[in-house]
C-alpha cells in the first residue's frame, strides 16, 4: 500500500457492530505499518468510543454511525472519524493523570473507564459538534521503538 486511502462504512448504532468495526480497523491499520500493540490500542480506543456513542448519544434512538478510517502509509498513521447525529454532547473531559480503581469499585462507579482508555491509547482525541452533527476523531501514529 503506497497511497492514502479512506475506508468508510455506515453501521446501525447497536452493540452487535463492535466486532465488525474492530475487524475492519485492525485489517486497515495493519496495512499502514502500525505495530501489533499499536493496532490493539487503536482498536480498543475506537471500540470504547463507539460503545460510548451507542450507550449515551444514541440510546433509545434508532440511529446510525458512520466510521471513516483515513489511512496514510507514508506517515504510518490512521485517523478514525466517527460521525453520528445526537443532541447529547460527548463528555470529552481532559484525560485524568491517574485512575483510582479502588475508589471506583468502592463507590460502584463503573463508568468513565472507556473515556480514560481513549485518552491513554491514542495520540490525539478530538470532538466536534454542530447542530446535532457530531464527530469524534482518534489518531494513532506508528512509533519505531514500539
Amino acid at each position, binding site marked *: 500500500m503506497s497511497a492514502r486511502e479512506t475506508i468508510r462504512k455506515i453501521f446501525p448504532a447497536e452493540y452487535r457492530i463492535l466486532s465488525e468495526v474492530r475487524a475492519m480497523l485492525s485489517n486497515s491499520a495493519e496495512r499502514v505499518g502500525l505495530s501489533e500493540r499499536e493496532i490493539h490500542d487503536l482498536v480498543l480506543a475506537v471500540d470504547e468510543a463507539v*460503545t460510548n456513542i451507542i450507550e449515551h448519544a444514541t440510546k433509545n434512538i434508532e440511529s446510525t454511525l458512520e466510521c471513516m478510517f483515513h489511512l496514510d502509509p507514508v506517515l504510518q498513521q490512521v485517523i478514525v472519524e466517527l460521525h453520528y447525529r445526537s443532541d447529547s454532547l460527548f463528555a470529552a473531559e481532559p484525560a485524568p493523570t491517574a485512575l483510582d*480503581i*479502588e475508589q471506583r469499585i468502592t463507590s460502584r462507579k*463503573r463508568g468513565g473507564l472507556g473515556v480514560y482508555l481513549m485518552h491513554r491509547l491514542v495520540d490525539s482525541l478530538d470532538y466536534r459538534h454542530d447542530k446535532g452533527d457530531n464527530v469524534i476523531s482518534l489518531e494513532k501514529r506508528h512509533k519505531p521503538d514500539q
Partner: protein
Amino acid sequence: MADNHQSRFEVREMPVPGSPGPTVLELSGQLDAHTAPDFERFLEDRVRTESKVKLILDFHALEYISSAGLGVLMGLIEEVRSQSGDMKLADVPEKIYHVLDLLGFPVVFQIYPSVTEALTAFSEQ
C-alpha cells in the same frame, strides 16, 4: 449485517480436582459491550444463586476485552470478598494484561501466571 461478524464470547465452568473448592471459569472469545451482559448474568448466577464466591477466571483463551467486560469484574469483586471469597485472574495474555495494568487492576485483583498457582493461593489463604 452478517452474523459471523458478531462478537463471540463464551464462559465455561471447568472441573477442578478435589472439589468442593474454588470455581475455575474459562473465558474465551471477545468480551465487549455486546457480550458483557451475558457474562454478568452468568457470574451473578454463580455468586448469588450458587454461592460460589471463590472464583478463578482463566483468561488464556480470551482474545479481547474492553472496559465493559472489566466493569463486570469491578461490579462483583466487593461482593465476593464480603463473603470471604475472592476473584483471582489467571494466565492473562500480554495484550490484555496491558489494559488491566493501564486501569490499575493489579492493585485490586491478584493476577497469577497460571490457574494452578491461583488454586494454590486459595488453598494457602
